[in-house]
């Protein structure tokens, strides 16, 4: 090609980034790598390696170690030995290390960028301009949290040894998202990168040691899914943090159930990209490019479902197709491309198959006509038009450069369609009308909402999903909290076993005038209802005296209670002031009947009347506390580096199942239900199995305190059996279990259907009178999910 040729055609021509340094690094290692354990490379115990390929050419790139049990054990051991000195180093000492890691990334920015592009197939533009700078920003930001930790998180301690499993789509950035908060908080890490893309993690570990990170603080074990499973199951690991597919996330939830390991999951998505008829159409078209043709669409939060208001759909389609024509697909190291290679042949095949299915099901397919390289894993930008919510491609995450489009008529319908998915990771809303955009954002079931923007990320702004997109947040204060545990919970002891159920009394009551029979029903949808099975169970005093009967709730009662709670959605939209008033009113009405409740507690549990009275008073005070918190546990305004704000809003999780403990039958019940309803959740509570009458007596307090129907539902019966029903119910969004270890395990195990958030006590008893352990943010944090709404502005 000559100057004259380009002068006539005005083509771009090749613009390759040099890869000499990255290739030289591979060569120094003979393109064969061990694990990185305790500050140095270690050959795999099994002697086995996996070959990682270069997606753009299909050629072998390097051999990485296949981690076996012994490797994982060694890495966890190294992390364990390092954890205590690392924590003892203190916030400032760790801040210095994290700062050094940020500087290290900046110092070697181009090497990381090039290696990442070669290994993953994504364009050098993205690794150079996004992945590496955002990773460095993450370390710098978390150096700050380490510095402030002793002051800002004085009542927390690190979790311990953290196992982290990261995906192949943002290998270095996900490494940063995982290890920066973990290390900042005083944990040590065993990281398992994806087998397709382990190289930048190894380079990072190597350079981190050069930058002074003590051995064992960060360990990298490479390998496939089997290695990841070994890490998940390793008993020496205190927490697992995983980013990847919903399917694998489910199996991790299952295999860690009952182990006491804490868990955060950042999973898949099918995120909506909503364009209203008053949007900047061309701006939104560019937004689509950033949403679905970023990183070849291999982005968990990719805006992959385009929802267009009918009136502009045709205009949008035309402009989008025109825009697709100017997208360039090419070698990742070319500096003049928009899209590189898909990560692996298996992924390419999956994309092709799903697109074929979409077309078979009636979609019109548009693909950019620009050339794509013949060799390697390339797939063109693709639009599937005329897709319906019932189409496979509208439901399944494709994880490729494929956008599906459908239309809506009204804002309500846009919200309905947007939320018509099992996922809830992200959403993008385009409208130039501030009232509309800010009305829609809170209505979307998604952890991140971008207004007139898409795929914005920052270390200061939490990222994470609702629903089956996982739980936990990365970034911001809430992200750091995931790597800490409350001091107040660390001294908990296994709950004392209850004395055996006393034998039912056999003697009659004699000839005195009997008290009027009082059989407590269930409380569902604001009404006292008979249990579906129409059986009841006796409630006895510790000495075996018959105190009354309660309904024997079953599956269908739970179903009805969940339905009632679901339809009480208005509670989530009630003002915080209104919720606060009702909580105070509950306290007022409970107080009016304090003596009666105290007697009941005494009768059921056998405690002294002074103690029973104290439990009532503590319950009243607790209701007051949550009346107070209702309008004060507020979100945050983040200041990410852009002209605009990100609003971290506390939103209710939705319908929450609550299993209450046997100790403190009233206070335990109030302590769990009150924070949930204060934040706008609706509750299906299963009271203490042994002492349910304090909760059933509470119906009348609920009825007289203006609590809307369905906000609190109470189902009595065999607690652990009802917990299982709640755990398996896919319309229950979260489940709190305070009781037995078995119930905790079952709750975690069975929650995988819809990946509900769980808060369980593993049979460790809380002191309900200890405010630090059982009241306020320690529980409120679990009663909300944080939605971050990004609002860039300017005119």
């Amino acid at each position, binding site marked *: 090609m000559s100057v*004259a040729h380009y002068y006539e055609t005005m083509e771009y021509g090749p613009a390759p980034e040099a890869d000499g340094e990255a290739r030289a690094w591979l060569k120094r290692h003979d393109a064969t790598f061990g694990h990185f354990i305790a500050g140095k490379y270690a050959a795999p115990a099994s002697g086995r390696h996996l070959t990682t390929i270069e997606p753009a050419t299909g050629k072998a790139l390097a051999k990485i170690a296949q981690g076996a049990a012994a490797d994982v054990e060694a890495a966890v051991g190294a992390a364990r030995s390092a954890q205590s000195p690392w924590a003892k180093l203190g916030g400032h000492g760790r801040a210095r290390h994290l700062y050094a890691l940020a500087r290290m990334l900046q110092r070697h920015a181009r090497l990381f960028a090039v290696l990442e592009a070669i290994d993953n197939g994504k364009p050098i533009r993205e690794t150079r301009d996004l992945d590496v700078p955002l990773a460095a920003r993450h370390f710098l930001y978390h150096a700050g949290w380490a510095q402030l930790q002793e002051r800002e998180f004085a009542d927390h301690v690190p979790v311990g040894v953290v196992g982290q499993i990261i995906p192949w789509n943002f290998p270095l950035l996900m490494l940063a998202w995982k290890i920066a908060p973990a290390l900042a908080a005083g944990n040590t890490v065993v990281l398992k990168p994806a087998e397709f893309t382990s190289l930048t993690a190894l380079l990072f570990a190597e350079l981190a040691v050069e930058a002074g990170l003590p051995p064992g603080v960060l360990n990298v074990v490479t390998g496939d899914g089997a290695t990841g499973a070994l890490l998940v199951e390793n008993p020496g690991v205190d927490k697992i943090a995983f980013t990847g597919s919903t399917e694998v996330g489910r199996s991790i939830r299952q295999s860690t159930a009952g182990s006491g390991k804490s868990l955060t999951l950042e999973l898949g998505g099918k995120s909506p990209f909503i364009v209203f008829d008053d949007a900047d159409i061309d701006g939104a078209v560019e937004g689509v490019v950033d949403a679905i043709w970023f990183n070849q669409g291999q982005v968990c939060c990719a805006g992959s479902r385009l929802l267009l208001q009918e009136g502009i759909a045709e205009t949008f389609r035309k402009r989008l197709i025109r825009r697709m024509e100017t997208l*360039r697909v090419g070698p990742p190291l070319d500096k003049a491309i928009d899209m590189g290679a898909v990560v692996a042949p298996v992924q390419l095949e999956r994309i092709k198959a799903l697109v074929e299915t979409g077309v078979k099901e009636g979609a019109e397919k548009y693909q950019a006509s620009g050339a794509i390289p013949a060799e390697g894993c390339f797939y063109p930008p693709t639009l599937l038009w005329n897709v319906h919510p019932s189409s496979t491609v509208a439901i399944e995450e494709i994880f490729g450069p494929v956008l599906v489009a459908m239309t809506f008529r009204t804002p309500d319908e846009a919200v309905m369609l947007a939320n018509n998915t099992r996922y809830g990771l992200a959403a993008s809303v385009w409208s130039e009308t501030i009232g509309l955009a800010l009305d829609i954002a809170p209505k979307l079931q998604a952890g991140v909402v971008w207004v007139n923007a898409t795929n914005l990320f920052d270390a200061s702004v939490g990222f994470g999903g609702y629903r089956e997109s996982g739980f936990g947040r990365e970034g911001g204060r809430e992200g750091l909290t995931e790597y800490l545990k409350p001091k107040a919970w660390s001294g908990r002891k296994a709950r004392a076993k209850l004395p055996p159920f006393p034998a039912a009394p056999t003697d009659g009551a004699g000839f005195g005038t009997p008290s009027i029979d009082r059989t407590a029903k269930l409380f569902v949808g604001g009404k006292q209802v008979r249990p579906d099975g129409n059986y009841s169970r006796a409630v006895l005093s510790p000495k075996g005296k018959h105190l009354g009967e309660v309904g024997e709730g079953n599956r269908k009662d739970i179903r009805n209670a969940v339905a009632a709670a679901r339809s009480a959605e208005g509670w989530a939209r009630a003002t915080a002031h209104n919720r606060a008033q009702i909580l105070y009113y509950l306290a007022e009405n409970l107080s009016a009947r304090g003596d009666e409740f105290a007697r009941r507690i005494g009768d059921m549990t056998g405690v002294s009347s002074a103690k029973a009275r104290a439990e009532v008073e503590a319950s009243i005070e607790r209701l007051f506390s949550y009346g107070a918190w209702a309008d004060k546990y507020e979100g945050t305004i983040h200041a990410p580096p852009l002209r605009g704000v990100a609003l971290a809003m506390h939103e209710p999780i939705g319908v929450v199942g609550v299993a209450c403990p046997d100790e403190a039958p009233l206070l335990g019940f109030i302590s769990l239900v009150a924070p949930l309803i204060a934040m706008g959740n609706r509750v299906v509570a299963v009271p203490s199995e042994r002492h349910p009458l304090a909760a059933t007596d509470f119906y009348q307090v609920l009825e007289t305190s203006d609590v809307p129907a369905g906000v609190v539902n109470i189902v009595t019966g065999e607690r652990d059996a009802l917990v299982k029903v709640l755990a398996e119910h896919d319309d229950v969004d979260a489940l709190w279990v305070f009781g037995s270890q078995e119930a905790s395990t079952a709750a975690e195990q069975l929650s995988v259907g819809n990946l509900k958030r769980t808060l369980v006590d593993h049979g460790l008893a809380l002191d309900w009178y200890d405010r630090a352990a059982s009241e306020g943010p320690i529980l409120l944090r679990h009663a909300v999910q944080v939605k971050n709404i990004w609002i860039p502005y*300017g*005119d």
Partner: protein
Amino acid sequence: MAQGVLISNPSAVPVQPHARDHNHPHAIARNSGRALEMDWVDEIRINLSAAERRVASLPGRRTVKKDAQAAWLLKAITCIDLTTLNGDDTTERVKRLCAKARSPLRSDLLEALGFAGRGLHTGAICVYHRFVATAVEALDGSDIPVAAVSTGFPAGLIPHDLKLKEIEASVRDGAQEIDIVITREHVLTGDWRALYAEVRDFRAACGDAHLKTILATGDLKTLRNVAKASMVCMMAGADFIKTSTGKEGVNATLPVTLAMLRMIRVYEERTGFKIGFKPAGGISTAKDVLNYQFLMKEELGRDWLEPELFRVGASSLLADIERQLEHHVTGRYSAFNRHPVG
């Protein structure tokens, strides 16, 4: 000031306007203008942050290297409206600039790039009315058109009838392109009908000369204003829309360019007419102009890389391009004094 003084012809030599020789493969049909359609104005939405994001990411998405870069810079030369618009301009100064317009690049460099004998020249010479005739004479036989800034440039606050007379005088003197300034007040008060009427009159006064409407985007402030003014000017018959006089506080920027290019695209979709674009002011490096070229190609297409549809108003840009091209040829970094000035 007397009307006669303002429009008097400083040159004693009578000049004839000569037809442009379009040797570009695509002949561009001239915008006839159309009735003012207020819906086309009212519907305009433009989001600043989204526009900024687009232009911020573009330099990372597009680049040209080696031969391709040299070719793009040569093309840029053909799109430069080599400009002098200063109070101290003189006839001789203008002649010197015209000479540079005829031979913008050292002949050894042209030779090395394989462009000897092609008659590569800048897009136009851009001067005040007073020097139109001088420039026309100096450029005789070169195919380089003379553009005159007009209508009370740069503020545009002289009486409307004088604006029309100024246009007519420049056309009489041989200007083939008239760079008018709009009355910013019409935009700032949302009086789109007044803006339309004004530009319509300018277009009529131009006759065969091409009308380039300067929006003075630095005065209009918002992208919405810029986009709406662009659309109104095109409906009123503009052949080019141009960002700036070079005298506002803020001159051409990439976000403003994006807003204007999108309007050009919509106008073409609706009317079939291709309108040209001219950023002016502040584009002084080869790297700057490449970013504008990328935006033209990406947003509008190949046709908008040719001088028929793309001009850059600049005075110091050429010198930087010359240095870059010398570097391309020799592999050594160059210096300004190695290239003849204009």
